[in-house]
């Protein structure tokens, strides 16, 4: 895994095909379809129960796979007795580290090769054995009948102790994943010397787990030497390439289908061990095998947002000029290298104008499941530190927190060597957001009220940007225009719940003058659709929509040329409207597309579109500012979020309805990150995770999010980022949320809570400590 910000969303160590660049299209002016609030083209399937997710597939003779996982945080498997399991009725195959098909070593990524079942288990939940049986109950019976001898080893269940003298070693090479990574510009010592105020503070975020509603899973079936996988994935081509590499097969022999999937948030960007196991079990038994994890397994073995420990020191002048920032961050990859501090310092480097910046990151091993990218890796954590620090600084120099941020909006991307952004809406997000929220009035009103009761009100703001929301090549899409006027769109991208299919249908409709619902979409199938990178990084719309638009324009051009010849006019004077070709010069010159002889002769036309490169020397970056109001019960430590407002510059709003849904969803996830979610490990006794379920690991429910949420899109008309003007929205929407809540809690109570989750216990303790300190001072 490289440390390039984009690497985790694309492919690891596999060369991508170069695609030719489509003609750069003029950006749209007014649009007819794009931007409207439009229900999804696949909404009927999703609300009727007809949409088929991988776990819904049933095939004749299909078996059910299940995995036996190491119950210890660190142990070596010395013996596995499967004789009882193999003899059970309905059990068709058992795999362990000692069965031949699993003996070969396989690459996890470019750095790590192990056996499929590595006898050295470095985390609770590592795969030890697998079975295939007639039904899932029998598969679980078989797992219980497998007897494993473990040689338990000392474990490290808290990354903060990783570098202590005598700390248990996760790997013999030590507990550092790599040497500290540093970044430096300017001279921080000089910067601090110039400051009027210097503040320094430590922050911590607990580990957060993706737990998408749909369990990770797949169905594997062989036809001779060809493998088909129906996988719950964000990227069918990622799965194809990595499964092919693991099984030593040509890409062409691995077909991966991912039409519907029930959420991933980064944890389904790649195949998992179960995917390979399902393929092997299917091969051994000559039967299709469905392999769906249990909920408990998804807490342990398929990724997390790693815990982050941060220290931030910032110097500022009385006029609001930031003079220096210094940041130390550590985090935990888990049991193997997996990006434990990925992008943790990006916001420090790039959000606000500052000439002198130094950051240092240390990724650590611990005996816990490996991290995976999780909705804006590193960013909500970085925002938790930076945006609370910005608030404290604003107070220290007696400046409004919004004004202080506006004062420091950067003109260029400093972390990329001072190149300009294609569009910079951070100022507008802050100013228009504050105006729509009633920022000043609410603060004045709260100040007037005295706010001394048991329940106290507070408002908070936080801003942010997202490193990778611009997308980029490669991607190819094709549009097929049939003689009867109907349209197919073919693209490789997955729709992970963000509304990708609907947005792309709207793009085609915009160009071809057809109803978006009439655009039938083939997608996310390596056997039948074009290449696309995985849906992640908030880059799917900015990557795919220009390719789709180019394909639609290609077809449109062909139609206009056919029509021009038949009507005896120049193609450049023609346009498409509601299924007719019409002259822009003379509306009387018109013809239904279905009556074009050239189209009828050819039966259908194919347009091909490729994603062109991003503008050279410019950064494509989405920006955000979020505002919230809280009510804090100082007696119980309970935080009620009264309302949230989110102002986002993600370029053109492609579909107002799904855009808003993304924003509200990001806020909801940010509320969980800030207030309720935490992986709890029994650090001293067993090293095991103690809240391996949704009862003890708290996701926000409907009662935990405010009924009052507002979405304020900021569209500056970015004509440079790509041909549709869209930047990503999925990840920016969750970046500032927790920090905005932290700032609101401070505004309400005067107490700064630096660690998440801010649950009632933590907050009530912080309030009590603050009261005690005050009494002692008084």
């Amino acid at each position, binding site marked *: 895994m490289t440390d390039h910000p984009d690497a985790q969303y694309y492919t690891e160590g596999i060369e991508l095909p170069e695609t030719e660049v489509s003609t750069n299209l003029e950006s749209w002016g007014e649009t007819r379809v794009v931007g409207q609030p439009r*229900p*999804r083209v696949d*909404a*009927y399937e*999703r*609300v*009727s*129960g*007809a*949409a088929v*997710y991988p*776990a*819904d597939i*049933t095939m004749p003779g299909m078996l059910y796979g299940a995995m036996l996982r190491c119950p210890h945080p660190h142990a070596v498997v010395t013996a596995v007795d499967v*004789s*009882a399991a193999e*003899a059970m*009725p309905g059990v068709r195959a058992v795999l362990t580290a000692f069965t031949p098909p699993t003996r070969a070593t396989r690459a996890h990524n470019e750095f790590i090769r192990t056996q499929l079942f590595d006898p050295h288990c470095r985390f609770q939940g590592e795969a030890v054995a697998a079975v295939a049986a007639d039904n*899932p*109950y029998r598969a679980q*019976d078989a797992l219980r009948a497998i007897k494993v001898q473990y040689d338990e080893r000392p474990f490290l269940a808290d990354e903060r102790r990783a570098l202590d003298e005598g700390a248990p070693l996760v790997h013999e090479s030590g507990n550092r994943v790599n040497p500290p990574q540093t970044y430096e510009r300017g001279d921080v010592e000089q910067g601090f010397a110039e400051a009027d105020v210097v503040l320094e503070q430590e922050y911590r975020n607990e580990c957060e787990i*993706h*737990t*998408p*509603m*749909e*369990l990770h899973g797949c169905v594997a079936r062989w036809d001779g030497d060809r493998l088909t996988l129906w996988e719950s994935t964000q990227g069918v081509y990622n799965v194809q390439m990595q499964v092919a590499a693991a099984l030593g097969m040509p890409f062409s022999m691995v077909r991966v289908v991912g039409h*519907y*999937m*029930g*959420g991933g*948030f980064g944890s389904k960007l790649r195949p998992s061990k179960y995917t390979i196991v399902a393929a092997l079990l299917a091969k051994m038994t000559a039967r299709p095998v469905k392999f769906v994890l*249990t*909920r408990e397994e998804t807490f342990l073995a398929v990724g997390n947002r790693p815990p982050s420990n941060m220290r931030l020191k910032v110097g500022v002048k009385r006029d609001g000029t930031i003079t220096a920032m210094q940041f130390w961050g550590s985090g935990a990859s888990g049991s193997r290298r997996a990006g434990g501090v990925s992008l943790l310092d990006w916001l420090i480097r790039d959000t606000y104008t500052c000439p002198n910046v130094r950051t240092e990151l240390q990724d650590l091993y611990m005996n816990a499941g490996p991290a995976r990218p999780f909705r804006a890796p590193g960013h909500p954590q970085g925002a938790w530190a930076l945006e609370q620090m910005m608030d404290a600084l604003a107070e220290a120099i007696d400046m409004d927190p919004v004004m202080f941020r506006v004062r420091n909006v950067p003109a260029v991307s400093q972390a990329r060597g001072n190149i300009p952004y294609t569009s910079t809406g951070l100022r507008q997000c802050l100013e228009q957001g504050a105006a729509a929220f009633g920022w000043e009035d609410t603060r004045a009103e709260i100040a007037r009220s005295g706010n001394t009761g048991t329940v106290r009100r507070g408002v908070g703001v936080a801003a942010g940007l997202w490193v990778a929301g611009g997308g980029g090549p490669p991607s190819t899409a094709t549009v097929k225009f049939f003689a009867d006027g109907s349209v197919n769109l073919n693209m490789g991208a997955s729709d*992970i*719940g*963000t*509304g990708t299919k609907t947005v792309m249908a709207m793009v085609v409709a915009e160009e071809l003058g057809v109803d978006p619902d009439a655009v039938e979409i083939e997608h996310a199938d390596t056997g039948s659709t074009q290449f696309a990178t995985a849906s992640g990084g908030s880059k799917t719309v900015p990557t795919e929509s220009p390719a789709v638009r180019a394909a639609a324009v290609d077809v449109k051009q062909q139609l206009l040329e056919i029509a021009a010849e038949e009507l005896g006019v120049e193609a450049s004077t023609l346009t498409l409207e509601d299924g007719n070709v019409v002259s822009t010069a003379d509306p009387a010159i018109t013809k239904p597309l279905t009556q074009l002889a050239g189209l009828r002769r050819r039966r259908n036309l194919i347009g091909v579109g490729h994603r062109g490169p991003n503008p050279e020397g410019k950064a494509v970056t989405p920006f955000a500012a979020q505002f919230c109001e809280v009510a804090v019960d100082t007696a119980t430590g309970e935080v009620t979020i009264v309302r949230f407002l989110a102002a986002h510059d993600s370029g053109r709003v492609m579909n107002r*309805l*799904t855009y*808003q*849904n*993304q924003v*509200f*969803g*990001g*806020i*909801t*996830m940010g509320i969980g990150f800030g207030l309720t979610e935490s992986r709890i490990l029994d650090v001293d006794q067993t090293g095991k995770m103690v809240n391996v*379920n*949704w*009862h003890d690991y708290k*996701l*926000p*429910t*409907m*009662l935990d*999010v405010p*009924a009052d*949420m507002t979405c304020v899109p900021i569209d500056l008309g970015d004509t440079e980022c790509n041909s549709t003007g869209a930047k990503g929205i999925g990840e920016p929407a969750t970046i500032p949320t927790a920090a905005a809540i932290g700032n609101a809690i401070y505004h309400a109570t005067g107490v700064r809570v630096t660690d998440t989750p801010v649950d009632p216990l933590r907050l009530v303790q912080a309030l009590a400590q603050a009261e005690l300190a005050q009494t002692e001072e008084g």
Partner: protein
Amino acid sequence: MTRDPNDRDESTDRRGISRRGFISTMGTGVLSATAASQLPAQSAEVPEVMAADELTKVALVINGRSHEFLVEPRWSISYVLRDVLELTGTKVGCERGECGACTVLMHGLPRYACMTLAVEAEGADIVTVEGLMDGEDLGPTQQAFLEKDAFQCGYCTSGQIMAAEGLLRAAGDPEVDAIRRGMSGNLCRCGAYPHIVMAVQRAAELKRAGGAS
């Protein structure tokens, strides 16, 4: 090792109890709480013991149609719906009653299908998301979820729709607070909650306007 189905040794007998035994035990439990003096003689019966994987016949009414089939006593309603009847609109998220993705209506009330055994539901009237359809047309609650974009990935959606349907059957025009409470047993990791509130309000409106059911 091959196993004789009649083998009842400790390693294979999971000490399941028969449907009849289960119901009589339940029955005595209820009775003892209400009228201990009228305990029937059957309380002294030794319940039959049945292996976990032994099949037993169950009759259920699902989406208005009668079904009879053989189940293992440990099979949940969600497993029977999805893997036996292939009604896969009902989703499974946790199999431990925490997320609500498998919510169905049993006797008109929302219920987690993963937490109910098929044998326990003998004779129950069950409605799944497929049962809200009017032929190929969406029911009003489904239509409202479509219009308001009340989902993202769509995986919790069947359960959300069934919870909303149950709520609206019990209270025709719930206030926002009642909607939030009524829907709080259904997790949505994508965070479509604000749109779900709007959809439930819209569904109430569609139902009042004379939508089906």
